[in-house]
């Protein structure tokens, strides 16, 4: 227990000397193991990725500092395709899951406190891993899946081939479905928590001042909810943008998302391709971090505006 160090005890009642010294250093002692661990793993990993992207690949032929691999990767014909495909999937999945999540959160708020089993039931997808959700989507939406069978019984199709390709498809519908199953409940859970809080504080005041229901929602609840929605948006976007497993397992064979592309480069026997792989890794990291920084600025802007409005 770091509460009382030997230092503090040796100081006795006069805690002004070593006691103060210890009080200054205590936070650093407490965070030291975590920071050391993160430094040796995460920071070192990013450093290693950058170095390898610049051509320092141990075991590969030439080890000179070069931007060659950046040029090669960026000039590749399908790089832009991969980049836009990755952004497209992340945007569609994130926008849809946030939209639906916010909608369900508002519906839940208006329906009053739900019983515990219902709240547990809708949070089931949050603990189910993506791999299992892929199995589910495959089972429900492949051409011989449950949805296709339902369409058959409803008379919409007469043969499984007529069912639209929703898994391994070029539009990435299967991928988006996996993310929706995971992320709509996540967005609902986070947004509903904040929404209940805000509503409890401002609903009566707003009604007393003569606001209508619509005004309450658009003028008070939504603006105050914005930081939460943005956080959820950012977390889900960053995740889908950098995710590997889902596009790898049920994405189209026609083209790859950037993380999948990085994986295939890395797995090639020729080690020089590791540099190309790391170039892609560095690029997706930079894009993700760029989003995080932009998010910080937007959040600050919104908070300044709402504060200004309150005055």
């Amino acid at each position, binding site marked *: *227990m*770091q*509460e*009382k160090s030997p230092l503090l005890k040796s100081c006795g009642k006069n805690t002004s000397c070593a006691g103060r010294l210890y009080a200054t250093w*205590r*936070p*650093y002692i*407490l*965070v030291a*193991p*975590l*920071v050391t*661990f*993160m430094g040796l*793993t*995460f920071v*070192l*990993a*990013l450093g*290693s*990725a950058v170095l*390898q992207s610049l051509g320092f690949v141990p075991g590969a032929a030439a080890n000179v500092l070069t931007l060659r691999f950046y040029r090669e990767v960026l000039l590749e014909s399908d790089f832009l395709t991969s980049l836009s495909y990755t952004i497209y999937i992340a945007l569609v999945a994130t926008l849809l899951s946030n939209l639906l999540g916010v909608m*369900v959160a*508002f*519906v839940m708020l208006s*329906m009053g406190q739900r019983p515990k089993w219902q709240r547990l*039931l*809708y949070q*089931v*997808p949050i*603990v*189910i*891993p993506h*791999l*299992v959700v892929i*199995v*589910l989507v*495959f*089972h429900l939406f492949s051409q*011989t899946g449950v949805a296709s*069978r339902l369409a*058959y019984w409803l008379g919409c199709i007469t043969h499984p081939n007529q069912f639209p390709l929703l898994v391994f498809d070029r539009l990435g519908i299967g991928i988006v479905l996996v993310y929706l*199953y995971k992320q*709509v409940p996540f967005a609902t859970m986070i947004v509903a928590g904040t929404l209940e809080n805000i509503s409890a504080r401002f609903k009566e005041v707003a009604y007393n001042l003569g606001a209508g*229901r619509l005004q309450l929602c658009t003028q008070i609840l939504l603006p105050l909810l914005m930081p939460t929605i943005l956080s959820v948006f950012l977390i889900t976007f960053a*995740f889908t943008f*950098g995710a*590997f*497993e889902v596009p790898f397992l049920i994405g189209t064979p026609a083209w790859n998302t950037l*993380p999948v592309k*990085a*994986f295939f480069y890395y797995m090639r026997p020729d080690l020089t391709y590791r540099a190309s792989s*790391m170039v892609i*890794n*560095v690029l*997706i*990291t930079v894009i*993700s*971090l760029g989003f*995080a920084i932009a998010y910080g600025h937007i959040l600050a802007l919104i908070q300044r505006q709402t504060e200004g409005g309150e005055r």
Partner: protein
Amino acid sequence: MRFPRLRAIIFYSFLFATSAPVLSLVVLTVSAAWRYPSLLPTVFSWRYLVSVLAQDRRTAEALINSTLIAALTTALTLLLAVPAAKALGLYQFRGRQAVKLLVLLPLMVPGITVTMGMHLTLIHLGLAGSIAGVVVVHTVFTLPYATRVLINVFELVGEKYEKQAAMLGASPRMILTDVTLPMIMPGLLSAAIMSFIVSFSQYITTFFIGGGRILTVPLLLVPHLQSGEIQVAAVYSLLFIMSTLASIALMEGIVRKFYKGAYFLQT
């Protein structure tokens, strides 16, 4: 808001969409044949369940590995996160924001980048292909979640009870076991559960760092998914969900047993 019926339809179809797929998964595990237009399996049998769970030896190996790795990851995560979260939640110090950012950053950086970046280091350290290496990599991804929850808990609980106990003459050990731990137990439990689930669900990290030598449940599942053996994949999925739920229940049970009197259990 008006339209009560519309709202009910939206809410209940949402509930249906989250739960029905899991039920269909259970049906899938006991179906031996499911010819095309039929909505229910044409032949029911335990065949897949038995062959995967009882006859395939790798299943037990994978389950033991998965559980061991997740338990070790959870332990390492809490060991690193609890003191750090205390400092970040209770004290103002120079560099606090930087440390906070460092811990949360793995949520923003693609997992595959971190994994590939660590691959070489772990090979040099001789940790690639070992349980220890896999635990280290998983911990990078569980730390942000655990630390975030624990920071909130420490901010909420504050330091006043510990100080009071110290003033009343409690030893540092007593303060830890009788004051700090019971107070932060709810957060500790959810941090542990989250770490366990995140570690249990890892696929590509285990694939890379385990180097094919460490077999876990996700590593068994994926090849069957790729070859389209959906029933086998469904059995592994069910095993996956069940063992996660069992572990959560076990952790909650242990906490309840040892902290029966803790204040949070009544709330």
